[in-house]
Every structure is written in C-alpha cells, then in structure tokens.
C-alpha cells in the first residue's frame, strides 16, 4: 500500500444554476493577461452541448487521454515513439479556432464619433490582431441551447443513445439541459504530465496538484494535445502552456480556490482524500465500465488503522490525515457513492467528481392537455428527461449502473425529506425508497445536510499543508534574499 494524499473536488450538478460566477472569478484572478484572454481555466458548459473547446469530448478528433491494449498504456496523441518525428508539428494540436478568438469592443468610438444621423457603435475588436472581427464563437457560445440542432445535437455523448432517444431529447416538450462546470481535474494519471517532452509539468507529491513549471516549458505543446479535457492551454504571447493551478497560493493560506469561494449555488466541495497509488498500474487496464468503481476502490478509508499506518509510513502529516477524515469529497464519493468522475474512460483518473443531476419531468403535454405531474415528481428516475445512457457516457465510462445508483439515492433522500418536512409521503414509502437505494435514514440525513446546509468550512476542508511556504522556510532567509530578491529575477515576458 502506497498511501498518498490528493486534493479532490466534488461538483454537485443538481445545485448548479449556470451563473458563470466561478468562471469570472477565475478569469479576474488568473487569466486577464495578454495571451490568456481565450483561456477559461474554469468554464461552465451546457449539456447536451458541444462545450469548450468545441466538441472536446470527441477524442477521435482531439486524440486526448490514454488507451490501453490490456498491458500497456499509451497516449493517444503523441506518446514517446511519436513525439520525436512530430515535434515540429503536433498532429493532435487544437488551434485557436477550436476555442475562439478573444475580442473586446471599440468603446472609444462611442465617445469619439462625429455627430451624425446614426448612433455610434462599438465594433468588436480582436484581442489578438487588434483588427475588427466577426464574432463566430465564444467560450459559452451554446449556453442554454439544450435542444439546438447545431450544438446540442453534436454532443459526442449522444452516440450512447438510441436514435429514438436522441429524437426525444430534441423534441420541444422534452427539451432539457444542465450545466457542467469544468476545471482541471488534477488527475491521478495525468496525460499532460506524461506527454511533456521537457518535463515541465509535474504533480505535487504532497497534494497532487498538477502544475506547469513556466521556466521549463518550451512550447512543444504536447500537453495541450494530450489532455482529454483540454484543460491545459497554450499562451500564444509568452510561448508557454498554462493551466488551472487550483489556486494553490490561496489553498496554502487556508482559503478556498477562487471558483469555490465565489460559487453562488454552493455546488463545490473540496477536501483531500487518501488513496493507494500502488493500485494504479493494475486498474488502469480494466474495461471502461469497471473504471468508476475501481477508481473508488483506490480511495482509502481515512479511519482504517491500516491506512493510518500506511500514511504514517509515507510521512503524511497528522494534520493532513485529520482533514482527510473530515473531507466532504470522501463522503460524497466513497461513503455515499454519489460522486462520479467525468469520462473516466480516458484513463487519467480525474479527481474532480460530479454528483449527477436528477432532472425530473415536471409536466407533460399530450393532445393539448397539459398534465402537471408534480404530485408524482420523483416517481421514476428512468423517466427523467436526460436518458441514463447519456449520463452513463458522461460520468460512468459507459456504466449506467453507477449513475442509476447515484440518482436513485438522491431521489430517495428527497422522498425522505419530503416525508419529514411536508408529510405527503408516507414513512413506509420513504423507507422503501431508501432501502431500494441502499441508503439508511442516517445517511439520508447526512446527504441532506452536506448537500443543503453545509457552510463554507464544511464544503471546503483545506488540508494544512503549506508546501511552497515550507520550501522557503527550509532555506536560510538571508541567503534566499541575497540570491533571489523578490519574485522573478526577470519578468515573465516572451523571449525573442
């Protein structure tokens, strides 16, 4: 057993209202610089939809992630054998047109225009070329367009559905969408790290955060191609790749990352989990459908004495173990079985988990008769508007069972709460639903509390590990000052 600690996350999709506050918080803190305007380390997509960059889930086109031949894992983009002949032109590299060309508006024209018959307009101006631009795409271009024949219909996950189900999704009465906020998953088996020819990307041993060393990055761009989630970005101005850093300067001072902190719907949970890194080589070759549960097996019980002993052997500090024991992520993923990894079949083992949305049918219309079915609101998850197969493709690696389990349990918790607070559901009915969903009354209460009532400190349990600060403390401060000064010795400007 090789016990390691990893900061992990849960996004509760049933609570996401798609307000993009997380994206704006991130953008304002990290990516408002030249060359990063097009980057959204945090973005919120509408599903079904094509996402950002467009159709990022279509790995036949983008060739991200790993593939297994049963005994060997290899990168789909450019593994070791293929990077050498392809280093001058990466065949799997997306271009700016796959994302969008960032723009601003010529606001000055509103003030400077000569008086005339027409209103002055602020034309869109490209933030790359500085020239006027016809806007054709943006980071959330298909926002809320759940039934769109252009966007939603091209969602790669629809391949898992029958033609009939696909038609239903597009029919006006059954239109449906939900939001999928995405950040870097800080994967256990990151493809970006494995792809980097320079070794600029690394995973921090103590907390598993994946970072790009800007001093070592040489713009070979292999990480951009390799990440199946397209969460490493190329800064065209500095010639370096950049990615979500999980706000580690905030984490190390005990604050939640900006996107977590600003989340209006309080959908985001953060905490560290202990996992057994030695299991990875073996489970990486399982069939797609087995991966969700296999990854869950890797996450260890932080109360188990054997795990604690393993943690002690690996030098994991008691404070880290203590926060792992209070981790909301452990509860959602391991105890409740509600948290599911996105597209686990890419085999990077993402450490960002999603609680799938319920999306019940509120009313239906047949022969001009509208039928309000709120009485029977949670009658059957199989009748939910998004087919289970769709969620299975997104969150189950094709395994619909794990999705069904998570939905059924959420549905049972609602019935239990309905019984307790409204009273129109009998105790027997609630108890039966809970039993069918593999959920005790105590667990239902715990799920309810963590979902609906948890405050900031419960949602984000930040382990007390100040890694970068610790590095500074190991050096003689006088020596450090005389040799380094403050920050970069040279500004991080583009080379010539």
């Amino acid at each position, binding site marked *: 057993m090789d016990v390691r600690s990893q900061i992990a996350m849960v996004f509760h999709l049933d609570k996401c209202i798609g307000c993009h506050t997380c994206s704006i918080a991130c953008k304002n803190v990290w990516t408002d610089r030249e060359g990063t305007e097009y980057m959204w380390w945090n973005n919120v997509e509408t599903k079904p939809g094509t996402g950002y960059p467009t159709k990022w889930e279509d790995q036949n086109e983008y060739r991200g992630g790993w593939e297994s031949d049963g005994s060997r*894992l290899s990168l789909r983009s450019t593994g*070791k054998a293929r*990077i*050498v002949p392809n*280093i*001058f*032109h*990466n065949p799997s*590299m*997306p*271009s*700016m047109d796959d994302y969008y060309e960032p723009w601003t508006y010529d606001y000055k024209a509103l003030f400077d225009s000569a008086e005339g018959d027409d209103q002055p307009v602020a034309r869109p101006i*490209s933030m*790359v*070329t*500085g*020239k006027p631009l016809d806007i054709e795409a943006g980071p959330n271009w298909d926002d809320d367009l759940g039934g769109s024949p252009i966007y939603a219909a091209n969602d790669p996950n629809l391949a898992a559905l029958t033609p009939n189900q696909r038609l239903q999704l597009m029919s006006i009465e059954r239109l449906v969408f939900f939001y999928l906020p995405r950040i870097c998953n800080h994967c256990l*088996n*990151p493809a970006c*790290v*494995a792809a*980097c*020819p*320079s*070794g600029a*990307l*690394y*995973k*921090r*041993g*103590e907390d598993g955060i994946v970072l790009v060393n800007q*001093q*070592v*990055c*040489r*713009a*070979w*761009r292999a990480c951009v191609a390799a990440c199946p989630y397209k969460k490493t970005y*190329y800064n*065209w*101005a*500095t*010639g*370096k790749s950049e990615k979500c850093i999980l706000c580690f300067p905030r984490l190390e001072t005990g604050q939640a990352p900006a996107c977590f902190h600003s989340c209006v719907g309080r959908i985001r949970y953060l905490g560290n989990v202990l996992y057994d890194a030695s299991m990875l080589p073996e489970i990486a070759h399982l069939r797609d459908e087995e991966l969700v549960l296999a990854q869950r097996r890797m996450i260890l019980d932080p109360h188990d004495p054997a795990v604690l002993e393993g943690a*002690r*052997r690996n*030098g*994991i500090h008691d404070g880290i173990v203590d926060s792992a024991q209070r981790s909301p992520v452990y509860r959602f993923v391991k105890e409740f079985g509600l948290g599911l990894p996105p597209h686990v079949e890419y085999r990077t083992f993402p450490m960002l988990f999603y609680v799938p949305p319920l999306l019940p049918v509120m009313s239906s219309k047949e022969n001009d008769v509208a039928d309000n079915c709120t009485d029977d609101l949670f009658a059957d998850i199989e009748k939910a508007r998004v087919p289970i197969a769709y969620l299975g493709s997104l969150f189950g690696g094709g395994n619909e069972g794990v999705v069904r389990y998570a939905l059924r349990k959420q549905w049972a918790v609602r019935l239990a709460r309905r019984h307790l607070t409204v009273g129109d559901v009998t105790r027997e009915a609630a108890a039966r639903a809970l039993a069918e969903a593999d959920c005790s009354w105590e667990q239902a209460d715990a799920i309810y509390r963590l979902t609906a009532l948890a405050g900031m400190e419960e949602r984000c349990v930040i382990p007390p590990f100040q*890694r970068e600060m*610790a*590095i500074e403390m*190991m050096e003689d401060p006088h020596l450090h000052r005389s040799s380094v000064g403050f920050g*970069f*010795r*040279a500004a*991080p*400007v*583009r*080379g*010539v």
Partner: protein
Amino acid sequence: MSDVFLFGVLPYVSLMLFFVVTIQRYRQRKFSYSSLSTQFLENRRHFWASVPFHYGVLAVLAGHVVAFLAPSVVLGWNAAAVRLYALEITGLALGLLTVVGFVATVVRRLGDARLRRVSTRGDWLLYGLLLLQLSSGVAIAYFHGWGSSWFASSATPWLRSLLRLAPDVSYVAPLPWVVKLHFVNAWVLIGFFPFTRLVHVLVVPNMYLWRRPQLVLWNRRERHDAGAAARRAVSA
C-alpha cells in the same frame, strides 16, 4: 574587409557572444527559452512550413557536421564521380527542401494577421540572415560542383585551425565569393543566435524518452520520513 578579420577574428567574436550570452540568458532569463510555436494560432499551413524546414535544415546541418568531423570519409566517398554526384544531388535536394520550408514559413507569417502580431523585429532580422545563408548554400551546391570536397579539404582545416587558436585563413582565402559569404554569414548567425528564438535548438528535450511517464515532485520527502520516525520514537 580583410580576410583576416572575416575568417580569423569574426569567428572568435561570434563564438564568444554565442557562449557568453547563451549561458547568461539560460541562467538569468530562463523563461525566455521557448520554441515560441505559432501552431496554435495557425494550424493548417504550419505543417507545410515547419516540417520541411526543420527536417531539411537538420539534415543539411548533419552533413556539415560529418564533413567537419570526418573529412577523409567525405573525400574518399567523393573519389568516384558517381558517388560525388549522388552526394551533391542529395545535398541540393535537402537544401531545396529547406528553402521550400523557409519560404512557406515567411509567406505564412506575412499572410496571417495573428502571426504578424507575434512576430518581432528580431524574427525578421533572423529571417533575413537565414535567407542569405540558405540562398548562398543552395547556390554553392548548384554552381560549384565539388562543394562537398571543398568543405572537407578547405573549410575543415580552417575550422580546426580556429579551434587550435591558430587561425589559418589561407585555407579559405582563395574560395569563390559566394562560399565566403556563406562562411561569414554563418558566423554572423552564430553570434546572433543567443539573441533570437534560435535558442530553442539548445533545449530540445533529451531525457523524455528515458524518463518515467509521470513526474511527481516531493518537497523533500526524506525530511518528512525523518520527522515521522522521530515522532514514532517519541511516542513509543
């Protein structure tokens, strides 16, 4: 300018600049070491520009290195006319491949507003020098048969005399002007090298093929182990 300056002094100035500035830049402005790829901004023509240029120039440079390290091999090879023709035609073809890639690179850069945005004056100056170098090189290959033998019989002894710190310009003084231009411009390029994006040549990854796929960096793991051991000792 006298041959002594061009072939006896300029090389040392260039080498000095090359080593001092490259090292200084790597130590103090490491961030500026990047291939500054523009594939992200323009992905289609990038293939037809970057791939022929890089493969062409690498092959041509490899030929130069062979002639420098093993001149006798080249001379022996060229002893038979057929083999000489084969070598010169190969060299010319590779040179032309490089030129095709180079022209495509410049056309691509000029024709795209996004790329003009990330092109600096240093880039254009570099393109000017490369144009001179490539065109003089191809001209030698085309107009001067025996070019490859000249390298082995004249340029190599001259370069070796430079390395011995006893420059002997008499080896290259009688060569045609286009060959001299090729030499002088090469030294200018080498001196200019550390001030340009060319430094990415020096940081091509070499450990990648041998390292483990995942890179996990610990903040002095052994310290934690020692700390844990100490704690256990205290509690026991």
